């Protein structure tokens, strides 16, 4: 069973609702950077991304009672950030970026064929990956980042997680499956909401 923030999110939300300053700090520290990344991919603008991050965190505190724990907290935050990004771009006299390209078909290709650079670098692809990655349990996210971003071996990941080689392989395998599931689910939701 994975450990990490995923299992404690309803508890964090409860503490936020009660006005616990430590919970506020934890929210900002845990989700501040991925929210900035998400907002940057949605807006294509560093200054707008900073504003979206701040507005999203503020709105999250205001409306935390509406978070039921049915989805990962970061996915809920991304829902707020999407609206804030559209508002921010509107205020700046710019249109929302055309983010309609990362559908289920995109994510099916991940397992079948090398993705074209153009698809990898699309804003929608990047935003969807940030949302899917930070919606994973912390163990899974850490294993994926270690393997695919920092290029660590399974042996190194096992040492980092304090587990056996076999167990680290298993975590990596389940992390990949969970990430793909999140990506396909998000693509599916987007298709339904736009269709």
């Amino acid at each position: 069973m994975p450990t990490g923030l995923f299992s404690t999110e309803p508890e964090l939300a409860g503490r936020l609702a009660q006005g616990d300053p430590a919970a506020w700090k934890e929210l900002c520290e845990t989700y501040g950077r991925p929210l900035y990344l998400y907002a940057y991919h949605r807006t294509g603008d560093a200054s707008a991304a900073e504003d979206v991050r701040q507005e999203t965190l503020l709105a999250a505190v205001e409306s935390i009672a509406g978070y039921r724990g049915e989805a990962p907290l970061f996915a809920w935050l991304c829902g707020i950030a999407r609206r804030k990004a559209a508002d921010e771009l509107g205020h700046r006299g710019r249109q929302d970026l055309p983010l309609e390209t990362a559908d289920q078909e995109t994510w099916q290709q991940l397992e079948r064929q090398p993705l074209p650079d153009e698809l990898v670098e699309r804003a929608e692809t990047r935003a969807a990956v940030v949302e899917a990655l930070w919606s994973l349990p912390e163990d899974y996210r850490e294993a994926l980042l270690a393997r695919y971003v920092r290029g660590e071996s399974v042996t190194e990941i096992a040492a980092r997680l304090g587990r056996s080689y076999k167990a680290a392989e298993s975590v990596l395998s389940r992390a990949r499956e969970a990430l793909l599931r999140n990506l396909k689910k998000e693509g599916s939701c987007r298709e339904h909401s736009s269709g």
Partner: protein
Amino acid sequence: MSTVLDENLGRVLKSALALEAPPLRDEQMRQILQQAAARRRPADPFPLWVIAALAAGLSAFTLVAWLLPHPLAALKIAAGIALLANLGLSPLAALVIVRNRRWSYAN
């Protein structure tokens, strides 16, 4: 052995985590401020008030003075709103201060 999935995951994760936006250079910041100043009519408020960092140990009263150079000034706390909580303010107090003192781009 690396699979197609491994290679694709490596590429999409690195791309998603990359921050291509470099920090603003001094020259770029001057240009942005000059453009903002040029758009400002004489009766308009300051277009933007940027707080890069807040000193530790401020009282709530002093903090408000830091945050409000002009009643209609736009406020951007560049160092992040988490700093308000670090000053000992409750999240709701921090929220009220930022909300009340921030001039929306929409207005």
